[in-house]
């Protein structure tokens, strides 16, 4: 047995790690999140939620009516996440707080799944199954198209 294999051999070890250091995936938090990241997520979440609440107040709907405000919120948020994520991930010099603030905080706080689920349930309970299905699938199809549109727009901007 070669003893140098069994034991680390001093200061040269850290320079030759066993595994190559993988670059962090975009958006993947590595290590414990820093306080400034948590703070900008909170600030962005508060602002995004206020924007969503503002639209709900401006654009109210009855429990058996079509929830236009939530649809508008979710579709515009999806277009913006496609745009911003493509811009951020292709921009090596993007500040490290840009994604936590704008994407995780603001867009995450602005768009909502829970309201969408509860509104769909309300439409079903109000005996509007066609409207409920249209809202459920219309939001989904629109959201996926909006994300793609945002990515496409970002590519246009960068080229």
């Amino acid at each position, binding site marked *: 047995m070669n003893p140098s294999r069994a034991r680390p051999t001093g200061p040269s070890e850290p320079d030759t790690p066993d595994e190559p250091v993988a670059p962090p995936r975009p*958006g*993947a*938090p590595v290590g414990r*999140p820093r306080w400034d990241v*948590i703070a900008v*997520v*909170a*600030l*962005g*979440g*508060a*602002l*995004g*939620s*206020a924007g*969503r*609440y503002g639209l*709900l107040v401006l654009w109210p709907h009855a429990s058996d009516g079509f929830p236009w405000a939530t649809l508008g919120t*979710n579709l515009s*948020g*999806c277009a*913006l*996440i*496609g745009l911003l*994520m493509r811009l951020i991930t292709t921009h090596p010099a993007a500040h490290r707080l840009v994604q*936590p603030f704008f*994407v*995780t*905080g603001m*867009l*995450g*706080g*602005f*768009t*909502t*799944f*829970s*309201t*969408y*689920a*509860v509104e*769909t*349930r*309300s439409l*079903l*309970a109000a005996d509007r199954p066609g409207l409920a299905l249209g809202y*459920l699938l219309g*939001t*989904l199809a629109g*959201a*996926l198209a*909006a*994300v*793609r549109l945002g*990515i496409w727009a970002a590519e246009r901007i960068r080229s």
Partner: protein
Amino acid sequence: MVLLGGAVGAVARFGVNWLVVRGSRPSPWATFTVNVVGSLLLGLLAGVGTALPGWVGTLVGTGFCGALTTYSTFGYETVRLAGTGPVGRGWALLNIVATLAVGLGVAALGWQLGRSF
């Protein structure tokens, strides 16, 4: 109330994502988890309805549940999964069906539970 609930909800979602990614699971698991938990809680609040003071609905419902759950990340992750080949498209479809079916199911379940209070 909305600002406070929104701040706490966004940080909670960020925390769940951190725990899930640290546990070497892909990020859509975190998004699925927060969307299901938030839908159950908002369904419960809607079921209890006017028996609750108005500020609870604004703080916990509009603020916390709204910010905890997200459609933008769900949409973005689904599009990204679908762009990674046939296996990814399968995962994207599963992500859609599971999130919509379970999310709507727990919202209805929460509403029923809230009603019985």
